[in-house]
């Protein structure tokens, strides 16, 4: 036990004697969060729209107004032909196009008109958002026109729609994408940070030659592993504090659940991730190998964890590969606590595998470490 403290003390001296690295370690996660949040968390609105109004009537102008009034689109260009409209989408200046046909005015006298809506499909996320918005706006417009038509008819019926669906969002009521994106981003940043910090812990000493001197002392493998992991738990907790502060006070993301639970579960997650880093360090012969393993865990961190794509739809190989990184469990926990405000009892299905993961990784790194030079 006393030897573990000695290793910890030594690691702290290494960390503090290298202020440049320490500066990077403290600053980069916060800077990443600031920068990346603006990238991933922008709501899709003000999509540039090109309009070709061939009808040029009151009815058509009122119809077009509905699009920009919604906030989803802004009328960036007004043109007079379909070819000009397509050209602007081709060049990427507009992402969507609305062509109001010449015969549009017939709708006011009970007729029907087909209204083509063009969407640049090259970015599926944007295209989906545009499609959904355009569809809804079009339907609402059609309903309103229908109601008007019927009220103006000789029958003069007072008409109401039979079903009026009202949506109520249970979590994240303002539908702020930031609120959803930031907990995930925090988890990703911590995962990458933890792996990078400890992946060189053992292999650096191996390359320096100090490991041989260390394993000729009576130190026990668990003392060395824990002595290498714990100092970085403290370092990453500084990161956690800064990151959560930025999320809460800069991006105004409310933390719905218990902060105490969040911190305890974060500590378990970090133990597992830092332990995984030490395991990588253990099986690597050179720092280069360790860096490679750590760096290549970055893509799975983003993709397999469910940060970008929902895990439910994944092929089973990708689905189970996600369990090789603790972030897969932690992501649910983060989103659950910050976004939904649910507690540990509800999150238990994600918590116990994460605890098991942390313990297994630690035992593995102790077992893999041999006090021999072979």
């Amino acid at each position, binding site marked *: 036990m006393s030897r573990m403290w000695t290793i910890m003390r030594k690691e702290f001296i290494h960390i503090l004697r290298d202020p440049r690295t320490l500066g990077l370690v403290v600053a980069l996660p916060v800077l990443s969060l600031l920068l990346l949040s603006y990238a991933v968390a922008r709501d899709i609105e003000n999509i540039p729209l090109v309009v070709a109004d061939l009808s040029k009537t009151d009815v058509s102008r009122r119809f077009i107004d509905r699009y920009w009034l919604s906030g989803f689109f802004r009328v960036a260009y007004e043109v007079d032909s379909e070819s000009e409209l397509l050209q602007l989408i081709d060049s990427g200046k507009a992402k969507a196009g609305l062509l109001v046909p010449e015969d549009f005015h017939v709708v006011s006298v009970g007729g029907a008109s087909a209204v083509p809506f063009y969407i640049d499909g090259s970015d599926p996320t944007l295209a989906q958002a545009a499609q959904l918005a355009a569809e809804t706006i079009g339907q609402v417009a059609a309903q309103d026109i229908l109601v008007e038509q019927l009220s103006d008819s000789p029958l003069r019926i007072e008409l109401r729609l039979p079903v009026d669906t009202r949506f109520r969002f249970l979590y994240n009521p303002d539908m702020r994408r930031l609120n959803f994106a930031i907990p995930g981003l925090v988890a990703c940043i911590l995962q990458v940070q933890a792996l990078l910090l400890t992946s060189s812990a053992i292999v650096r000493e191996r390359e320096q030659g100090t490991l041989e001197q260390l394993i000729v002392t009576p*130190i026990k493998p668990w003392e060395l592993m824990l002595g290498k992991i714990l100092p970085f738990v403290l370092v990453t907790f500084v990161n956690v504090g800064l990151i959560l502060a930025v999320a809460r006070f800069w991006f105004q993301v409310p933390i719905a659940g218990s902060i105490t639970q969040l911190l305890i579960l974060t500590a378990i997650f970090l133990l597992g991730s830092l332990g995984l880093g030490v395991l990588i360090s253990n099986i690597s012969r050179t720092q280069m190998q360790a860096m490679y393993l750590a760096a290549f865990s970055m893509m799975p961190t983003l993709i397999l964890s469910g940060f970008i794509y929902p895990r439910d739809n994944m092929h089973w190989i990708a689905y189970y590969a996600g369990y090789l990184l603790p972030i897969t469990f932690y992501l649910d926990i983060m989103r659950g606590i910050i976004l939904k405000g649910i507690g540990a009892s509800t999150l238990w299905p994600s918590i116990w595998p994460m605890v098991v993961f942390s313990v297994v990784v630690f035992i593995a790194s102790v077992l893999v470490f041999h006090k021999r030079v072979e």
Partner: protein
Amino acid sequence: MSRGNAVEVESLTKKFGSFVAVNQVSFAIPTGEIFGLLGPNGAGKTTTIRMLCGLLLPTSGHASVLDFDVARQPEAIKQNIGYMSQKFALYHDLTVVENLDFYARMYQVQARSRAARLRELVDMAGLVGHERDRVANLSGAWRQRLALACAIVHRPPMLFLDEPTAGVDPISRREFWSMIYTLAGQGVSVLATTHYMDEAEQCNVIGMLHDARLIALDDPDTLRAGLGGDLLEIECDAPGRAEALAVELPGVLDASLHGVLLHVNVPDANVGQSLQAALTQAGIGIRRIEQVLPSLEDVFVAMVEAQDRARVRAGIVKE
């Protein structure tokens, strides 16, 4: 300790795949003695030391250190030995005292006596006034003495030194060896590897490793006397040509160059006269010819050549 030996090695062998790094090596180190393991790079010195420290598992054979078996009780050995590896394994961003303190705590030196022990070691290593210097700023010789101090911080009765003086100037080497003597005087047993022959002369017993085998094992004087015959040292004009001539001369056992000097091994110093005549006849001017005591280098060269000749005779020609 059984029969008063700190280390006992019996047919110790280590193979890495098909490569034999240490082949059937046997020796013993009596308690309190300095044992020198000699041999060129790649002869198996480091592999032998690593097996004795419990860092490598022997392929076959037995070895015990302080009565602990190297294969079965490596952790008991580690608690009781000091080990100094080829590269002085110190933490460069830690200070002199921090390095010492780190190893003192690793060996769980009692907190009460720790401070006094560190002062004593700083003093022994001649690093007084440099306690707060970072190792990165120390010279090679100082690092070497600090590495020794770290290795003995827990007062081990057995000390393993793997080429402790590599890359250190001659005066510092001398000082280093006087520290080793002091330790041996206090009853510490020492095993040191080296390829400096002058250092080997300082040891109580020498083992010579060549191609993974122990080809000689004795004290330096016996080894020198065992060379057989007398040794003539010749200073002449064309030592290279003279060597070729001497080897061919009847009565000459062996001839080898040591810098500009020619060493000729003869059964009797009288052969010197015919040797002198032959060289003069070949037009080689002789400035000096005299009988000298064989150095360990002579012994080593003679042993290696005898070994190689024996192998050629046996038909095992090594590539």
